[in-house]
């Protein structure tokens, strides 16, 4: 992995968008670009700068004079040479941690003759290709679990299509995080810790310093004993639960009880996958 912990990381500005996780996904991705005209080259440039794991360019054309006008990644000296190789070399210069490769072959040929070629990639970017080939490519990619991104540009307009199987993303970033205090299911050490406290204790100083989470754990236990091992569910029960807590409060200065009552909702809204 690229110097992740180096503070003067060249990826600093983009880490602030997608974090370590996003960067890792980028660096582990193997991409394939079909046709490295201006559209493909420009797209790949942005990925290479960002640190994509590898990119393989598939294009059988040679660099012509007319390419010099619209593709920044070919130059006079490369006329007559393989466009894939030329673009590949240039892109490699942009980021030496990316593995840039090329294959001097037409994408259509590979689609027809060697579809398994695509199985090694995470993502295939198909640019300026005809619908017929795209349909075949899509079928191949679907079968092999490879993501496909189709891009076409015409003059001043362009379009992008993504094709990938429906999949599950478990990465909850809820707007309102509910911290799990394990009130309903304290683990062994927490339970032992909780047992050390006595809510009936005479000493008022100790009484008002019992942490509110402990008060709730104990209240849960008590509730369970008298309610068949279940937790408050109806609004009547929830109110009753809070009243039980209040009844134990001995004075206005007992902030711990106030906090416990305010946080009582944590008892019945346990964090689950939503």
């Amino acid at each position: 992995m690229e110097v992740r912990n180096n503070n003067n990381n060249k990826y600093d500005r983009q880490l602030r968008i997608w974090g370590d996780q996003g960067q890792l996904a980028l660096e582990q991705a193997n991409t394939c670009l079909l046709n490295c005209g201006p559209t493909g080259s420009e797209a790949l440039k942005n990925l290479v700068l960002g640190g994509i794991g590898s990119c393989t360019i598939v294009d059988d054309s040679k660099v012509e004079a007319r390419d010099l006008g619209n593709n920044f990644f070919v130059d006079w000296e490369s006329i007559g040479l393989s466009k894939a190789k030329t673009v590949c070399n240039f892109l490699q210069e942009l980021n030496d941690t990316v593995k840039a490769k090329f294959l001097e072959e037409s994408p259509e040929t590979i689609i027809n003759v060697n579809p398994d070629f695509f199985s090694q990639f995470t993502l295939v970017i198909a640019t300026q290709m005809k619908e017929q080939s795209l349909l075949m490519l899509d079928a191949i990619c679907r079968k092999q679990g490879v993501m496909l991104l189709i891009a076409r540009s015409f003059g001043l307009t362009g379009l992008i299509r993504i094709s990938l199987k429906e999949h599950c993303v478990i990465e909850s970033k809820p707007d309102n995080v509910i911290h799990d205090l394990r009130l309903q299911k304290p683990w062994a050490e927490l339970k032992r810790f909780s047992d050390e406290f006595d809510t009936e204790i005479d000493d008022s100083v100790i009484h008002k310093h019992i942490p509110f989470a402990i008060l709730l754990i104990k209240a849960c236990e008590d509730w369970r004993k008298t309610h068949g091992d279940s937790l408050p569910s109806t609004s009547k029960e929830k109110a009753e639960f809070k009243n039980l807590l209040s009844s134990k409060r001995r004075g206005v200065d007992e902030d711990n009880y106030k906090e416990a009552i305010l946080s009582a909702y944590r008892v019945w809204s346990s964090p689950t996958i939503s």
Partner: protein
Amino acid sequence: MLSQKAKVLMVGAGGIGCELLKTLALTGFKDIHLIDLDTIEVSNLNRQFLFRKQHVGQSKAKVARDAVLKFKPDIKIEAHHANVKNSDFDVEFFKQFNVVLNGLDNVDARRHVNRLCLAAGVPLVESGSTGYLGQVTVHVKDQTECYECQTKELPKTYPVCTITNTPSKPVHCIVWAKDLLFARLFGDRNQSSDLIVHTNDRTSSAATADTDFFNIKDGETPESYACRVFDGVFGDNIEVALRNEETWKSRKRPRPLYICEVYSDAKKPRIDGSCNSPDGNDKHTASAARILGLSNPQEVWTVRDSANVFLKALELLLNTRQKDIGSLVFDKDDQLAMEFVTAAANLRSSCFDIPMQSLFEAKGIAGNIVHAIATTNAIISGLIVLEAIKLLMGNLDDCRTTYCLEYPRRKMLLMPAELSAPKSSCYVCSQSTLLLEVNTTMTRLREVVEKIVRGQLSVNSPMISQGPCLIYETGDDLEEDMVTQYNQNLEKFLDSLPAPIVDGSILSIEDFQQEFTCHLQIKHREIFDEEKEPDNMVLSGKLSTTRDQALPGSVQLTAVADNVSIHAVDDDDEVILIDEVAKQDLKRKVLDEESVIVCGKRQRTEVS
């Protein structure tokens, strides 16, 4: 071909600049001037693709030019490694161009260029980007709004008392650590603000109230100095603050923190006074955190970690930067400084029950870092060139403001909007008078010049006069006795000037380079709200902040970066962007989704 004959000025060779230079070259432009004052940094390399690792430290403008010439040797590119506000770039300079293209990262420079373009009568294409968002627009004198017709939100400043007494957010603690503590310990002592906590009871004050508190005493070791400072700012200062009951009536009371509490059961990090840290003295690599085993900048430190870093970084700074102490300016890329600020901010946060930040996050906040990638800038550069071509063809009607969105809206990632006519209330492109409320008996001219004239009005070389009397001006060709007089004037209270400024006075503010004039009417006021009006003066009239409602018929531009420092912003790729466009019911004249404007002709999009 149109592009081949045009002469273009690019201001900025950074994120947008690199992409723009490439796009201009590919579009056939052959005569380009490029201005950028910056040098290349490692963090630029993820998107400013004309630069390589070996170019770090070199001029962006020059390296960009060289890179493009390698690919297109037949273009003329003149690179200026200079500040666009430099007097060399006067109206005559601007007049030679057919169009000016901005790829800047701060409002101040944008305003300056705006004024010069207005003065020279040259159309300006403006742009900005941050993360996935970006926008491009066009300004043509007398035909469209100028850049300043729509007021830009000024950099966020925090009331002093929030920073010194009642912080409630991480940014407050970071600003405190950076602009107060760091500045006081390592910067120019004469310029630093008070770290003293204000108490109503004037007889009791913190040990830190002693003006020499932060000076290292004779014979004091770095270790005992560090501990003394620690206890002073995180312990005593807080104790004193707590004595003011009024403050804490409806706020959570902070907890003082002392060295002995932090290390009650553990040893302090070894402070051995040695000057040799294994990383050497390179300010980019010398690190207290690494010595202490805290190698992951994204990990949030504990209170103990923060205390360790605080003490160690302080020691290293004292020992390895002796010659800089007393003049050190905070630089987010100065590793030790950044670690010190993070540690100090975290310790303060822990006293006030505010969540602590990792080094990575703190750096973003302290350095006003804006996230950025290549893709957005590439898109923006394309849009800039399209607008430039429309202008060169004389098709102003086809020019648009275009927003690059993060998610497609109605299946489009690019959203165009028609341009608006100039605002008659704009004090830049239409003459109008502003109102300045200030205490004329207690405010010095210097404050007005810094906060209002240079600050809010963004005037570069001001000439201030009242009627026929010149009160202040800047310039290289002034006579010595004039300069002396002006310097004296700066220190005088407004009503004590040779031409006294009192209630009802009208000042003229001019800048020849910007060809800018505006009038300032003075209104005397005694009292200012410390929290709401921390500058002790209020500028109003036609100039209103964007916190007020949006001007009708316009799109609201709001700054995205809301984590800025107490002083002027020095940021990288600061953005001015729309956020709320879709939610506002505006006379925006967005084009319908069925058609796309292509060089004056509406065409139906054909998607195969």
